[in-house]
């Protein structure tokens, strides 16, 4: 067994500049969808200071929502096999947004919100554990509803590429890249320039003060939560066009998302975007020197390194008073 691994390793060690640029390009394309899911998670953490374990499972729901919209929903038939999945991925957003709204209304709001938002320690663990519970239900409920067989959205784009010099750009991933960047910019503008977005950021900055300023913090949290899971679901829908998935898939992306968000700086939306992009690049370029199965281990290593060396991330700040 070990000799096989060594051979694999040895072969992988030698790579050319073209290989590197190819991996880099793939990393940027994949990284944009990662960046979009990180933005979704970043909105939730930024506004609520809650670590949402279920984020990966909302992503998985986004994949299935896009899948059913494209196939049973007839979008692929109606809009063509290339455009249908993209529209389906978009529509997965509102569906998961609505589900997120309900879950926040009936479960999450009871352990978060104006009263509990500032509690570090015991209260925070109650919140994490609640999202862990939601994650277990979605994952295993998904297993019951969708079955365990891996599935995927068939689109001709994922099997064809554009050539730029020696570099191949997968068409499916390139389109996803454009959609993801566009949506991320739209979210950024929403947060920065609309009344609702500003209320959301105020609630994130200091929920107590926001409450005194007449901002409905619970409502701001509900919007942040639903928006966050909805955006991540769109990212999931985009990913679903280029890789197969099953109900446990979400978990593979939890670490991707947390690594990205921590890298960017917990609480920073802009940071989350760049963090996700970097994680995509790390993941794809790591395959140049590491065996394919260890690409997620490479992400873990980067994740741990960031946490130890620069816990405030690229765009975050640390504030602690004695």
């Amino acid at each position, binding site marked *: *067994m*070990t000799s*096989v*691994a060594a051979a694999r390793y040895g072969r992988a060690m030698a790579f050319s500049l073209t290989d590197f640029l190819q991996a880099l390009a793939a990393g940027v394309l994949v990284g944009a969808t990662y960046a979009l899911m990180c933005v979704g998670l970043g909105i939730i953490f930024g506004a609520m200071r809650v*670590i949402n374990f279920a984020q990966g499972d909302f992503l998985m729901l986004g994949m299935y929502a896009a899948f059913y919209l494209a196939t049973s929903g007839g979008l692929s038939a109606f809009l063509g096999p290339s455009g249908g999945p993209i529209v389906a991925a978009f529509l997965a957003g509102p569906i998961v947004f609505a589900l997120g709204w309900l879950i926040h209304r009936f*479960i999450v709001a*009871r*352990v978060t919100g104006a009263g509990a938002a500032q509690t*570090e*320690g*015991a209260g*925070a*663990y*109650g919140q*994490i*554990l*609640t999202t*862990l*519970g*939601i*994650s*277990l*239900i*979605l*994952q*295993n*409920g*998904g*297993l*019951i509803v969708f079955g*365990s067989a891996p599935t995927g959205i068939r689109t001709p784009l994922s099997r064809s590429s554009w050539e730029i010099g020696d570099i191949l750009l997968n068409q499916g991933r390139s389109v996803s890249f454009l959609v993801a960047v566009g949506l991320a910019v739209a979210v950024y503008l929403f947060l920065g320039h609309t009344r609702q977005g500003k209320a959301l950021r105020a609630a994130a900055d200091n929920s107590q003060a926001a409450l005194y300023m007449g901002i409905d913090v619970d409502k701001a949290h509900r919007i942040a939560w639903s928006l966050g899971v909805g955006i991540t679901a769109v990212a999931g829908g985009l990913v679903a066009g280029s890789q197969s998935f099953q*109900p446990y898939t979400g*978990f593979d992306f939890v*670490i991707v998302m*947390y690594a990205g968000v*921590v890298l960017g700086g*917990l609480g920073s939306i802009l940071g989350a975007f760049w963090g996700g992009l970097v994680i995509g690049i790390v993941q794809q370029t790591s395959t140049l020197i590491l*065996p394919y*199965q*260890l690409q*997620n*281990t490479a992400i*873990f*290593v980067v*994740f*741990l390194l960031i*946490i*130890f060396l620069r*816990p405030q991330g690229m765009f975050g700040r640390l504030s602690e008073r*004695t």
Partner: protein
Amino acid sequence: MTLSLAVKRQLWAILGFAVAVLVLMALLYSDYFELVLTQVLLWAAMSLAWNILSGYSGYFSFGHAVFWGLGAYTVALGLIHLDLSPWLTIPAGAIVGGLAGALIGFPTFRLRGHYFALAMLAYPLATLYVFQWLGYQEIPLPMKREAPILYMQFADPRAYVALALGLLVITLLISLRVENSRFGMSLFAIKQNEPAAEAAGIDTWRWKMLALMLSGALASMAGGLYAVVLLVVTPEAVFGMLVSAQALILALFGGVGSLWGPVIGAVVLVPLAEGLNAELGDVLPGIQGVVYGVAIIAIILLAPEGVYWRIRDRFAGHMPEPIPTPVTSLTIPATPREVRAPTAAADLLVLHDVGISFGGLRALDGVDLSVPEGGLYGIIGPNGAGKTTLFNVINGFLASDRGNINFAGESLVGLPPNQVCRRGIGRTFQVVRAFPRMTVLENVTVGAFVGAADNATAQRMAGIALDRVGLGARVNALAGGLTNRELRLMELARALAPQPRLILLDETLAGLGHDDLDGILDAIRQVRSEGVTVLIIEHTMQAMIQLVDHFDVLDHGRLIASGTPETVVRNHEVIEAYLGKKWAEQVVEAAK
């Protein structure tokens, strides 16, 4: 040392539990039920192991699967490659788990709260991929028909029940020992307020590491026995998220931080999930996970403290809390170290050119300061002048960028707070940092560990310190229920308990009414008259002028004046920067 009543009662409870399991084991004839019983016991042991770290110290681990999995693979690979019996490899797994705990803790304990929990999540998942890559996808344990007992392979499933019970009892006894020792009390203090624990002389890093190593060792043993029982090991089954989640869900359901909570959780949830899985697993393959998910949300919404604490609180409502053993030692005459003459010429604390910057802000800029042994010195200055930063630099919370800090002729630079405390510097905080769920006596006892060889001595020293500040009557009250004045006095007592030579008091008078003020001032004078050197930060000028014999004035991180109260309040720069002209005139008038 005789066992306390509470410990004896717990020992009987453990014995009763073991007997009950054995009776149940004898009554059950189905192999399947014996297997479920074994799983209940193993998961109880796993959850209890998790509880030693996360329940007692408050450092939540989302990654205990890493220990469980390493234990399982130690047994499986030991048997396959080295032909080693689980009788050897399960204890060896404990060593592997303990070492893994040390390796993980070494970097990870630099983190707190969310960051710690997230980092812990990464370890088992990273390990999972590594084991997949190594090709250990599905490892069946080979049958050893020639010597089954030697390889822990029994035809009778009751043998596994007995083994799992043995492991659980060991884990219960270890937990009980931890709870009733300095170890447990230190973890408990860390959970409630880590900086305060550190400043009170507790080597927080060491205790956290020990807790993680012990916890990892026990979890590995449970994982190893699990491999023996199930006879097959896969990376997903032993390193997967469900393992880590299950350990903490069981503890959370039953009651985090309690001896019986994890056991209650395992007894209720494991058979429920197993039963549903057996009945409905074919139709509804994820039912086990759904049950855990629902259980966790239900418990958070309905009884966030867990079943054990809920029952205990209800029970305690009907029955009065057992009267705490009276602290007889309070009457033992205090034996403070010999009173040093306040006039001793030698400087106890000397700061030379101390500086620290935060980004571009120079919080302290070349501060020179000396405090003679037996002195009562005050530090004043406007908000943001760097007063608390100065204390944080002296007691080791912050490392200065430059300069020397000497205490009794020894440099303090680079020492962590607990070491500074050990050398004889106690401190209190601007915002009181109590351990709210501990009694007053326990709060102060934590502070006394530094100077005491054993728990009894620590408790006696705590009693003495509480008497010194006049809080002797409140020893058994919970700190969470104290008034502001009592909290300030308790914090003073905690700083005094290890009999320090110098105490740093940070705005001890803040937020106190006029009547309360005098009591605290008297306590401070009393402490000083016993030979303890005092350095105090305070804004209440009237009180300070009466109290101290020397002022050092900070402004923008620099020392702008130093001298007797009379000269300092007349100092032009001090009036400009801090006092204000009008006020200064009044005080000077009043002082005449």
